[in-house]
């Protein structure tokens, strides 16, 4: 098949011609072969590792463990807020400003950019169906009202941002009064699913 007088390193040219196309018969490039074999060996090793070392637990088990670790870490940070703390926050322009930002992108669609309501309730009037103390507002945002379509914001926004939104609402609603005395801290909110 090879031509008689070719040099040892010359590629073999196969004699057959298909509509004028001929083919060399070069050896496979080494780096390409390494890629091929390397990928096969990696595949076998990866399979063995996952199949036989218990790493093949279902994804939902894995993610639930990760979430649990996260919410534990979150609990350890900062105590739960109360009405006084939230009121103080409403006097802090920075917190109110970040509360406004969160409000506009998450709440304004239903409660209106001016807080006058729409799909959701008016937040500027003195009427509070679920309680008008700062901590009651905080709790309501965290837990939501499933029957009325108010989402559970706790796991989505988190404690800090909900506290800021509460501060923003207090700042915008003159009917909310400053809490008289120190209250007991709020019960543990249901952060995390």
């Amino acid at each position, binding site marked *: 098949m090879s031509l008689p007088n070719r040099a040892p390193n010359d590629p073999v040219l196969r004699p057959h011609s298909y509509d004028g196309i001929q083919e060399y018969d070069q050896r496979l490039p080494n780096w390409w072969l390494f890629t*091929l074999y390397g990928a096969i060996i990696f595949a076998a090793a990866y399979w063995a590792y996952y199949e036989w070392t218990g790493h093949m637990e279902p994804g939902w088990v894995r993610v639930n463990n990760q979430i649990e670790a996260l919410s534990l870490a979150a609990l350890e940070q900062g105590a739960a807020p109360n009405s006084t703390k939230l009121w103080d926050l409403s006097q802090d322009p920075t917190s109110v400003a970040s509360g406004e930002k969160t409000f506009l992108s998450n709440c304004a669609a239903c409660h209106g950019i001016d807080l006058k309501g729409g799909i959701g309730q008016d937040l500027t009037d003195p009427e509070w169906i679920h309680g008008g103390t700062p901590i009651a507002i905080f709790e309501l945002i965290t837990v939501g009202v499933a029957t009325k379509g108010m989402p559970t914001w706790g796991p989505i926004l988190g404690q800090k941002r909900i506290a800021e939104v509460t501060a923003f609402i207090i700042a915008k609603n003159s009917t909310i009064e400053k809490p008289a005395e120190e209250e007991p801290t709020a019960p543990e909110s249901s952060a995390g699913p």
Partner: protein
Amino acid sequence: MTTRTITVEFNDKVVRQFVLASIFWAVVAMVLGVLIAGQIRFHVLNFDTSWLTFGRLRPLHTNAAIFAFVGNMIFAGTYHSTQRLVRTRLASNFLSGLHFWGWQAIIVAAAITLPLGFSRSKEYAELIWPINIAVTVIWVVFAVNFFWTLAIRNEKSLYVAIWFYIATIITVAMLYIVNHLQLPTSLLHAYPIFGGVQDALVQWWYGHNAVAFFLTTPVLGIMYYYLPKAAERPVYSYRLSIVHFWSLVFIYIWAGPHHLLNTALPEWLQTLAMIFSIMLWAPSWGGMLNGLLTLRGAWHKLRTDPVLKFFAAGVTFYGMATFEGPLLAIRSVNALSHYTDWTVGHVHAGTLGWNSFMAAGMFYWIVPRLWNTKLYSVRLADLHFWTGMVGILLYVASMWVSGITQGLMLNSVTPEGVLAYPNFLDTVNAIKAMWVTRMVGGIIFMFGFLALAYNIARTILSGKPVRATVEVEIPEVPPREGLSLLGGFASAPVVYSFLLVLFGCLWGVGHGSLSAVAFVLLVETFLVAMIHMSISGARWGEWYDRLLESWLPFSVLTLFAVVAGGLIQILPMVFIDQTKGEDGNWQKVYTPLELAGRDIYVSEGCYNCHSQMIRSMVGEVLRYGPSSRLTESMYNFPFQWGSKRTGPDLARVGGKYPNIWHFQHMQDPRATSIGSNMPNYPWLFTEKTDLAALPNKIAVLRRLGVPFRELSAEEIGRDSLAQGQGIVDDLKSSGIEIAPDKQIIAVIAYLQQLGKYDPKPPADPPKENPGLETVLEGATTTVP
């Protein structure tokens, strides 16, 4: 041996027809692409018109690009090159003509039905069942015409391009038929026989390999003919052709489930898909090497020859895309990239860079020869090349930036354990500029292609169709095929390959001693095969030469190679009972109105932007709720896990917002979601829900194993209106008047139950296998 000389005239008429059709449909696909790219950024471009809305036009764009543009191009290339490589005329003028006109009729049917909302909602398989039957028939026409031509060939040995054409025809037939098994409920609607995870697996086994065997293998075949022709150089390596062909067709099939990574799909399937995707890297690059290294000694021609310029760039894009593919199939990379624009950029690197550049190179080479003239303008072709290049780079780079940006934002969790960007729209607003860049890239690319269309038109006008012929010497006694069917299999390389796959599978799935024994046998077989090859390699080479002289054994071996992956991945999932073996949430059976709403959701193409699959990732669980489970979609025919999130996931959206929210949101998404890019759906508020179709639909779903209660047509109607009235009454309390039979009411009913599940398995579980055996017995009786 005595011979006589005859003159063969090629059938180039059908080739010319396919070339023209391909260019025409390419322009249509690109105009559509630019329009829908605009719609993603500027929602007004949906024009509040049902048949111009993104959800309906995006399937038309993908189908036009894949099946109309590339489809016609590969038919042209296959027919043109095969006739010359086997030195004979296409077997049948009638079948060739039927193939061409049948295919165009299918495309026109698709262009009418998809904008009207007739869609199966399975990606690249959206066309409805009557068109599916037509596609199958025309594909068989193609196969018969092609294999018949091989059977009467005057060149004994099959060139590598033909191998790839054979793999294409066989594999696409297999994929297409299995993914389109369905039971009709009417002339225009059917439910797939697979539901939930089974449907997901079958769909992506098909979807991934549509890319592999419709957009890749036939174009590799075309590369193997036209690139050495244009470069006037021998192909770099015959043995590389052999190794990369067989490894490519064998491995490709297994990689499908990498479209379902980090979902509820069983872990073993995810792992399998990932490792096979990584093993696919080298076989793909084998094709790139054989293309690029064939250009050795011809690189200087690139400066003057637009054909080689397009081929060199096309093959380079192929190499880039097939490196990016395995990368994206790594589970942790996929967690970032999936559902984002990165995937969109990846696929366009393939279709724009590889397919359309290879098509351009082929057209510039073939058209002057088919019309016996010279290319009208080389400078215009150069202009096309550079505008195309700029367009692709803008497109792909902007999708990288936008995909990675959005992926990072969506997954970002603060140290307090909450989402850094809780509002999905924050991530949308962050990438809007990239969507504009992408559209600009698309427009530039489109203008480049228009330059091709003009250039080709002027070329054709300057010439005349030529009757190409070839002189063939035919022996008086026709030569026998090189190998019998049995001779194809009973050979050392085939036996070793079979044993290696067998032992590899036993090692992988087996436990304990079985696995250990299989591993020893695997290593032993490999060593024996290597030693044997070093001794008898030359004889193996002779055997392969003879295999190449036998089209039937070659085709059957190809079929075996592509069947293996599907059997091992899909069959175990088809024969499980989806209601058992998981302690997840059990999906509730839809009420008639919810089913009607779901079918509207499906036909509007909501899956193009919304997934229903919360992946097992912290960011997803915080944003959307607990990760999705297989039991939650077991009654979904078809599944709606989605593949891209231009909007948020909807798996648990039910009950999250009040009815009035959905009402206003569908009317004007900006009313409830500031900055949203979702189209308005005004027609849902005026058009009536098709309640009359429900009895048939429910009957078909019962046959597929969904435990619907037995209801008369009258009860179904009454039930639906009663449930609709409940939503209407609720809306009335917010001051909105609407009739309960409007489509929006059904859609709200459907959306509000998403994520509402039974904590217990169904009391009356469906049959052992919801899906398969019921279909086999009922398939003949369902057509209305």
